């Protein structure tokens, strides 16, 4: 029989030693029991001394309890303990119940304890039964604390929440970490191993040894071994063991391993120190590679945003030579359309929230395209052949649109929510990839592909290209150039609108949203070369990646300045951009 100590620090400097025992009854089975010999000490100084005493008492009690506790607590017992939450009047009483639950060693207690830590555990006032509650609209759905099955609804006034504080939450997390080493779900075991890796403790070694012996999944086993190695390094094991542990942790090669090894390097000497130094250097070079990968991903992500913002501009600028300074405001209109759609959905059809972006897409396209059409017919068509005047007039339009939105919606940021499929993130190796960035990349590439198809494979696209190449000849061939102009402008604006839907997910939706993108979009178009969608694609991604690679060295602002200066210099070299149009149309 072995024991492991855990410290709980409760409010009012109460130090409670709470000891857990592990009993290996037969190979492959772990049973955990615990006793709570709580003891109050008045000062922190006396903690060390009192701990020995507490542990002695704990050990005695444990011996008794360990013999008494059954190998697996029956469900009825668990329910009886859980019911005590209803009568627990303060935090320490709740904590006592928590300890009692953990002491059963049954992995079924994960559910109620997890819910408690989240603040989701409730007591029904009518019969003092304990439930897990999930707020849904005005009422709360009650779930059975052990099975998780639904067992009715209750209004918020009929139930009382079991209150938790941070100390209690930490206690629950620690207890669960140990408990879940033996959990059935591999993900829970991985989480437990991770927690133990980050908080190494010599007393962890033995339970980990047992867990490693019983572990069937190779990847989890590796993690458990790393957690064990971390604990070995802080124990007083022989040097050979520690060297092996350093090698094992060095192979892990992530930031956690790095911080752990740095601590080891500082606290040890001799061969272990040297091994740690070598491992740190090794990890650093691995991390540098991952950092480069992360920068490329950030750059691609920024590039996709730039692509979305610039692609509409590329069309109008390329086909009509029109500088649309109101382009950023079209993006803003798209974002505000998303906001309005989400407001309607929140108020009337809450179940459709995950579809809000899909619903907003066609609406944002229509709104922005309609506004674009009005601008083209109302202002721009009178200014053809005078690009500088067009620039000024659209500037005026952008001011009017900004102020109109500010008057209607107010100057503050509006809240646009992420649908569930766009929130959260996942990791590839050391890369953290957020879902919303990934979806925006997919979306930007999708829009690009659709546009490419429209330009190259549809009659309308053919007409657009004909007008770009030679306007008079196109007109002579019977193409209605004014219509092509109007529809092109509407298309460019509509694309800006759907860009707004995407950008509303990662940026503040405010009347100034468009202003931040307009200069960047122009840079992309100018850099990539006008009249060429591929140029815009390459321009957007290369600017995005260059920007993100400069940021660590120069800082975000200086990086941006450097990029601007580089573009200004680049234009000296290639005034028509990366992918310039060739042929007679250029000098037309």
């Amino acid at each position, binding site marked *: 029989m072995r024991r492991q100590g855990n410290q709980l620090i409760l409010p009012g400097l109460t130090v409670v030693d709470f000891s857990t025992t592990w009993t290996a009854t037969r190979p492959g089975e772990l049973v955990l029991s615990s006793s709570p010999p709580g003891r109050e000490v008045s000062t922190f100084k006396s903690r060390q001394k009192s701990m020995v005493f507490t542990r002695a008492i704990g050990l005695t009690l444990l011996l008794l309890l360990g013999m008494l506790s059954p190998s697996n607590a029956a469900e009825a017992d668990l329910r009886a303990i859980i019911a005590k939450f209803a009568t627990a009047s303060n935090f320490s009483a709740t904590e006592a119940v928590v300890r009692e639950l953990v002491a059963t060693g049954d992995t079924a207690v994960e559910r109620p304890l997890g819910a408690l830590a989240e603040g989701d555990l409730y007591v029904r006032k009518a019969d003092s039964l304990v439930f897990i509650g999930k707020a849904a609209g005005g009422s709360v759905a009650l779930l059975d604390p052990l099975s998780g099955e639904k067992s009715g609804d209750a209004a918020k006034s009929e139930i009382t929440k079991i209150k938790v504080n941070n100390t209690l939450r930490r206690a629950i997390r620690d207890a669960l970490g140990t408990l879940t080493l033996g959990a059935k779900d591999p993900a829970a075991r991985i989480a437990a191993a991770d927690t133990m890796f980050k908080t190494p403790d010599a007393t962890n070694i033995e339970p980990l040894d047992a867990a490693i012996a019983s572990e069937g999944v190779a990847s989890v086993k590796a993690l458990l071994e790393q957690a064990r190695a971390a604990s070995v390094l802080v124990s007083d094991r022989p040097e050979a063991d520690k060297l092996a542990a350093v090698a094992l942790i060095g192979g892990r090669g992530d930031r956690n391993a790095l911080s752990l090894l740095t601590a080891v390097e500082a606290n040890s000497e001799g061969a272990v120190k040297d091994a740690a130094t070598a491992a740190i250097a090794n990890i650093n070079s691995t991390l540098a590679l991952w950092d480069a990968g992360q920068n490329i991903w950030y750059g691609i992500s920024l590039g996709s945003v730039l692509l979305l913002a610039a692609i509409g501009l590329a069309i109008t600028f390329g086909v009509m030579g029109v500088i649309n300074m109101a382009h950023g405001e079209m993006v803003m209109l798209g974002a505000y359309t998303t906001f309005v759609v989400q407001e309607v959905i929140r108020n009337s059809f809450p179940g459709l929230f995950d579809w809000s972006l899909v619903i907003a897409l066609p609406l944002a396209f229509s709104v922005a395209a309609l506004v674009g059409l009005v601008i083209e017919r109302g202002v721009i068509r009178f200014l053809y052949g005078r690009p500088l005047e067009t620039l000024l007039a659209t*500037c005026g339009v952008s001011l009017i649109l900004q102020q109109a939105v500010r008057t209607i919606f107010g100057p503050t940021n509006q809240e646009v929510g992420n649908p569930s499929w766009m929130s959260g993130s996942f990791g590839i190796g050391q890369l953290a990839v957020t879902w919303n960035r990934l979806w925006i990349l997919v979306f930007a590439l999708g829009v690009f592909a659709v546009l490419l198809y429209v330009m190259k494979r549809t009659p309308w696209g053919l007409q657009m290209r004909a007008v770009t190449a030679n306007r008079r000849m196109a007109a002579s061939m019977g193409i209605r150039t004014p219509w092509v102009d109007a529809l092109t402008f509407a298309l460019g604006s509509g694309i800006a609108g759907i860009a707004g839907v995407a950008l509303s997910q990662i940026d503040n939706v405010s009347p100034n949203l468009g202003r931040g993108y307009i200069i960047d979009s122009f840079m992309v178009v100018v850099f990539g070369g006008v009249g060429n969608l591929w140029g815009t694609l390459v321009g957007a991604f290369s600017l995005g990646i260059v920007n993100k690679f400069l940021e660590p060295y120069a800082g975000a*602002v200086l990086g941006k*300045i450097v990029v601007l200066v580089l573009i200004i210099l680049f234009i000296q070299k290639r005034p028509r951009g990366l992918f310039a149009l060739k042929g007679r149309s250029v000098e*037309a």
Partner: protein
Amino acid sequence: MITGRFFAAGADRRIAITIFILLAVAIIVPLLNLAVAPTSSFYVPSYVVALTGKYLCYALLALALDLVWGYCGILSLGHGAFFALGGYAMGMYLMRQIGSRGVYGNPLLPDFMVFLNYGELPWFWYGFDHFWFAAIMVLAVPGLLAFVFGWFAFRSRVTGVYLSIITQAMTYALLLAFFRNDMGFGGNNGLTDFKDILGFNVQADATRSALFAASAVTLALAVLVTWAIVGSKYGKLLMAVRDAESRTRFLGWRAENVKLFAFTVSAVMAGIAGALYVPQVGIINPGEFEPSNSIEVVVWAAVGGRGTIVGPIIGALVVNAGKSWFTGVLPEFWLFALGGLFVAVTLFLPKGIVGMWDSWRGNARALRAASINEESGTHPAVPPPPKIIRSAARTPGDWSASGPEPQPAE
């Protein structure tokens, strides 16, 4: 020679009148502010002096922009940057004049440097304790930036909207740079809390009047210089580049040098405007680099009439007076009004107020001549003269034959 032409040329009477009015204002307004009792109805309150002085600086900036846009066809969306750089140079001088009277009482370092834990004065602040050095920097910094920027841009024939966009990018980059605290220019808050200029209290009425007079006189000088440039042989070349750059180049002129000269002179003028502006408003911060400010300057010139000398001055005064009035009465609607002004001017007033006045007077004169002929019963054998245009080459686009249809981007 210039003075001879100045008095002889009847057609440029308008310039003479403008200069005369500016000089008169430079004398009369300070007198009415300082020498007349506040109770008198002729008294000009100090805030009006400060406000009008500010407008005169804006007028100078608009005139500087007009030299490149109206006469050379370069639409610079970055003139606010030159204005702000001139302002910063003056602001640095004013900061050094505070001396140990700052909040932290450091005799060498301005307050914000003490606040940001600077150990010593950054190298680029040396010399700014002398007015002559600051005055040179007011001219040199914007001029040098414009020269380098223009040399690169014009040499590689970046023209039209591309040039507009990269000038905008330039001012945007400077905006971001000056917002940084570790640039050593006061970061977000800029330079403010000035005390003395040349030993006189900046807040005093007499100093304000003197600054007002200086602005008016400088503007008058700038009008004279612009008029001299535009009227010279070089001015003809400037307009030739504006209307047909390729043709001018084919005739053997170096179009890029022509543009570079105008751009640099214009930037220096903008810098002087900024330097006069800062002591009058008492602050310079990175907000002056905002691209939207530079675009607003373009609108002043457009409203007044680009390609004329008086136009930008009138435009700057009218639009800014309107802005002051609007933001006082209907603050919500100022941006609507400004936006509407952008659209209306480009659609309905392509030649601005002055251009419209000219063509209206030209029409009236032609009508009068026709009616006189009618009365005298003589039917002229020749058709009535075409409408009188002050200077055919001065209205942009007259010589180039591009039709009213969209051109694909170059």
